[in-house]
């Protein structure tokens, strides 16, 4: 019997689309002074990939472009979500980025701490433990 490679192509496009988007959105948000510029560029790139998917005859390339395009369109939305994570303190603010400096001044929850950069302890952290982590950062 012959193997059907379309599933592997779809799997690779899905995994790398999600992975690259996940890392890139965080890195660009950290340094970008605006949200609208990277979000708009991701939107244009995502639409272009979808148009490519529609016009290419080859099913493998169409599948890869279509899946990657949708993940890039999602990344466009993620730039706004990441901006709000920084405001809520769920993602670290960059003290050298003027947009993040503004957030740090305006939002009491915003922080330079990367809360997720820790190993699970197996129990819920107590309020004073969280407080000590914040104090240690200052």
């Amino acid at each position, binding site marked *: 019997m012959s193997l059907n490679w379309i599933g592997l192509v*779809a799997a690779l496009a899905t995994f790398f689309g*999600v992975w690259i988007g996940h890392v890139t959105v965080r890195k660009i948000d950290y340094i970008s002074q605006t949200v609208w510029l990277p979000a708009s560029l991701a939107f244009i790139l995502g639409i272009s990939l979808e148009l490519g998917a529609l016009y290419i005859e080859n099913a493998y390339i169409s599948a890869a472009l279509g899946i990657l395009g949708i993940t890039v369109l999602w990344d466009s939305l993620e730039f706004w979500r990441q901006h709000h994570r920084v405001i809520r303190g769920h993602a670290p603010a960059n003290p050298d980025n003027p947009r993040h400096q503004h957030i740090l001044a305006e939002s009491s929850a915003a922080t330079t701490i990367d809360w997720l950069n820790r190993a699970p302890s197996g129990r*819920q952290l107590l309020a004073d433990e969280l407080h000590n982590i914040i104090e240690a950062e200052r």
Partner: protein
Amino acid sequence: MNFIGLFLGIAALIIIGLGFLWVIRAEYHLGYLWWPYFLGLGIMLVIGSLLVPSVWGSAILGILGASIIWGSTEFTTQAVRTELGWYPFNQQPRPDPPFVGKIKRWPSPRL
């Protein structure tokens, strides 16, 4: 016009969206130490997709497998989110996965 890419993209969006939900529930009920079993399941689904003759069936199975592989790398981060109080923390004891001692010594993947 070739609609396969667009339709598979929309299918991927739905499957990845569901990924957010099942990772939260699986971490809550099982705990993050189950991640290798989800990684294995995802890899098996991707390999299985090679054997499905239908183009759509194979592609959907591949997307599902990749999404479960990605989910397995999110377990540890999700456990930290619950410990920080960002998501509900399960106070009840959770079942140990088989070979829990070995799994604890492995670095859990975080991408």
